[in-house]
């Protein structure tokens, strides 16, 4: 299955974006987000970017006030996911220009579009920034 979910959470623990690739009920999501956010936010910079949680792993990366948390299967290549997070951030950077928490918050729909171009069904579908951004740009043109 690969990627199970992608969360963007600020350092106060508020969810800014949540995309799940397996169905969880709202209660399950709330509980899960609470637990892993607590676990990851408590870690410091000297610690590794991987947290084992239940029967999967969280690969996470922090950018300023925002944490990107990706839940993956235990046998997933952790570093590849870690750099995939960076690719996502660079892609958003290319679109928004120095992306920040507010961009994602107020342009939730665009963040979702980009993510949808990059991940599908828990698998990476595209890694070329130009290809990822084409449909987003198309949308801007048509609306």
């Amino acid at each position, binding site marked *: 299955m690969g990627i199970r979910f992608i969360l963007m959470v600020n350092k106060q623990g508020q969810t800014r974006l949540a995309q*799940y*690739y397996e169905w969880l009920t709202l209660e399950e999501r709330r509980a*899960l987000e609470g637990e892993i956010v607590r676990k990851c936010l408590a870690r410091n910079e000297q*610690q590794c970017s991987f947290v084992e949680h239940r029967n999967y792993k969280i690969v996470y990366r922090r950018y300023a006030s925002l944490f990107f948390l990706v839940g993956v299967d235990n046998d997933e290549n*952790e570093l590849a996911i870690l750099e995939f997070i960076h690719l996502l951030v660079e892609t958003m950077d290319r679109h928004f220009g120095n992306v920040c928490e507010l961009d994602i918050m*107020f342009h939730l729909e665009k963040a979702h579009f980009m993510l949808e171009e990059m991940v599908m069904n828990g698998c990476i579908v595209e890694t070329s920034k130009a290809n990822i951004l084409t449909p987003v740009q198309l949308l801007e043109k048509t609306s």
Partner: protein
Amino acid sequence: MAMHGMRGLSIFISDIRNCQNKEQERLRVDKELGNIRNRFKKEKGLTPYDKKKYVWKMLYIYMLGYDVDFGHMEAVSLISAPKYPEKQVGYIVTSCLLNENHDFLRLAINTVRNDIIGQNETFQCLALTLVGNIGGREFAESLAPDVQKLLLSSSCRPLVRKKAALCLLRLFRKNPDVVNVDGWADRMTQLLDERDLGVLTSSMSLLVALVSNNHEAYWTCLPKCVKILERLARNQDVPQEYTYYGIPSPWLQVKTMRALQYFPTIEDPNTRRTLFEVLQWILMGTDVVKNVNKNNASHAVLFEALALVMHLDAEKEMMSQCVALLGKFIAVREPNIRYLGLENMTRMLIVADVQESIKRHQAQIITSLKDPDISICRRALDLLYGMCDITNAKDIVEELLQYLNSADFTMLEELSLKAAILAEKFAPDLSWYVDVILQLIEKAGDFISDDIWFHVVQFVTNNDDLQPYAAAKAKEYLDKPAVDEKMVKVCAYILGEYSHLLARRPGCSPKEIFSIIHEKLPSVSTTTIPLLLSAYAKILMHTQPPDQVLQNQIWTIFTKELRYESCIDAEIQQRAVEYFALSRKGAAVMDILGEMPKFPERQSSLIKKAEDAEADTAEQSALKLRAQQQPSNALVVTDQHPSNGEPLPVFVGQLSVVKAPNMNNTEDHSSTEQVLSQENGNLSQVDQQPPSADPLSDLLGPLAIEGPPGATVQYENSAVSGLESGPDVVDGSAIVPVEVGTNTIQPIGNIAVRFHALCLKDSGVLYEDPYIQIGIKAEWRAHQGRLVLFLGNKNTSPLVSVQALILPPAHLKMELSLVPDTIPPRAQVQCPLEVVNLRPSRDVAVLDFSYKFGTHMVNIKLRLPAVLNKFLQPLPVSAEEFFPQWRSLSGPPLKLQEVVRGVRPMALPEMANLLHSYRIAISPGLDPNPNNLVASTTFYSENTRAIVCLVRIETDPADRTQLRMTLASGDPTLTFELKEFIKEQLVSIPTVAQAPTPAPPAAPPTPQIPPNDPAALLTDLL
């Protein structure tokens, strides 16, 4: 805001952002939901733009964690909007809000299909993505051919085909039959010739799914994968857009090597040689570079290459190259690389021939074990566990033991279990094994499961040479001042069995051993006391010739001193009574109390458990702790065994329904012994019985030979019913309703039992749960009492909003000193409580206690043991004193008589003891009829002052369930209240009905234990 017009959405998001607290946020969200619902209701005039805006708001609200239970239809309906912006919103929001089983999704299936087979490729992409993310079986059956066509179409652009590939992957997972193996192997092979790396990336994910299901069918894909890998690794013809920090798509490289790991071997020598050359290139060519992203990306590829090399059973030289690389990684400071080095080294352990070279890194791994990062320690622990063998077990286990002192508490359970297993598996000598386990119990008693100590007991039992050593060690540990309760259990057990082997050593006389054990009795819980009683009985039997002083001392414990004969705990009581009876028979019953026979040898036990549970040991332990420490908001049904036998739902932070059989804190010692003795092969003597109903009957199995057949069943029934009805009846006698509020936490031990025990003694635990322990110590003088409440915080974080309120009944004046609002971590505060008894009454004072832990408010109402009998003083009287008073108090209301029925049958001495335990003194010999009891006591209250009460109980030897009771005192209220009080005690206390000779008939050896029973679980293990 610079959004294309969705101003309302921006305003809403800013409003939410400006909310000061969760409550404000909720209000704003509710308002918005109301607004959206209204707008949706009058659909007329709702433009596609409006719909789009509202649907985004819904998604935003849903993301914040609020339920959005309407508007799904509107989201789905946007899918059929003609314009791209609306359609896109419809597709994206639908795939976030709905799951594959949602009915509305079926409604959209036609629109989705039309978009997929239509001419508009952006629509095709949207539709394929939706199906790829949430398509179910129904989609699989109706859409698979169309999706396959798109994937293979030469006229379709890559942007559609890459989505078709992952869409097909989803459909294949929903129904593997949609991909016909015969046709698809060739097509898949062709697909891998694709030049577009986007299509190739998705197709590779599809291939991984297909080969993991059936690698034989896709063997023609293997050379293609090697080609792709070669192209990428050597950076041939890779477009700039797919190069990440100079590395040609690391994700595709990783995925390709993953696909290759699903083929068991590579037979074609050319392909094999090419692949090894590429792998060698990766292994040698990956350098550490300054740029973090580049470094991570190249190491992502390197670690995948290592995994592939391991899988391919490479030549020895290449393997040692891998070990050398990993050895380098586990020594770096960079935590990610170190973590992955440890993880991959653990995987490497399965490769033959490299274990020795891994062992050379032991010291380095131990450094990581002590890393403050729990992720890293966990990897190090796993690796140490995996690499341990007979040559290094001593070093590794000792490191683990040492690490126990400083380890993160979430690690303790896993750590101690692993240490225990390694000690057992690779012990160079058995005494070392015993040392390790005892150290484990000492250092992490709370975190080790019972099986660990059961196991050491088995080992000692089965190894004669070990017994004196174990006994000496047990004595040593028990001699220490503060001993963990589990330690008391195991030491008491071992000393009970084997301390006689030490008899000639200094300080090890039976009397000394006994007093060492007995010293611990006041501090242990009721579940441990039975083990201590067994030890006493065994020590007594081993003391030959009998030591009169010791015998009297122990008999006093069994009968009077600690009043176990009338103890509220049926288990303790039963043992006390039975051991007393048995030990009085002297040498005749030596065999029964002799050493336990050997356990049947079986293959590894704990080990199996650990291996079964390997995957989630850590998680389970974390779960367990979380359940104890910070109940959160998801409901979980757990398999609890609280002492009242009723499974209760417990709240813990957990996603799904889990079973956590070990979560109960009231360890069931009885099943312990049951198992021990069943394991011992006594089964043929043991009657089939409900677990924990009567562990003693099989403990004392051989006795059956003497007993009348058929008695056991009745005997057990009475014990069971005693256990069950006991607390209820006790509760019934309370005038104030007592309950454990609406709490979601689990009290440890039975509150009613604890209360009842405290009615009889003056200090002990009133209440305990995972967070707090409330103890009581009381002193009574005439009509006054001084209680001290000990409020102990068991946790490492403070308990806040602590409140204690006394609800005194009318007859008690009670004053509680100030209770602090916060109890610091691991601290105990004492709160004195003054009590003055104004007049006789059976009403009970209640302590209304609440505290907050985390977000959880806990409120408990507890009866306080400031009960009538506390204001009594036993007063033995002579015949000269008794009769004149008895005669002067004639008739009601000063003298009351009642025939009491439904009395728990008990022998006269037992009843005497019971009265004595309530501070009513028996005056033996005053009544000429041996079936009657005469007793007296002095009652104190402010109104009545000291006042004498006289009691006469006439029993019927033919029917022990009824008796006639006469009470007399100078105060009518007192007479009535005391009569009722005694009556309650006579009818409510669970006692043993029959003489203590459990007599199982010659039962067939059928150890049928319910499968979920912990004992059964253990039997499997042992």
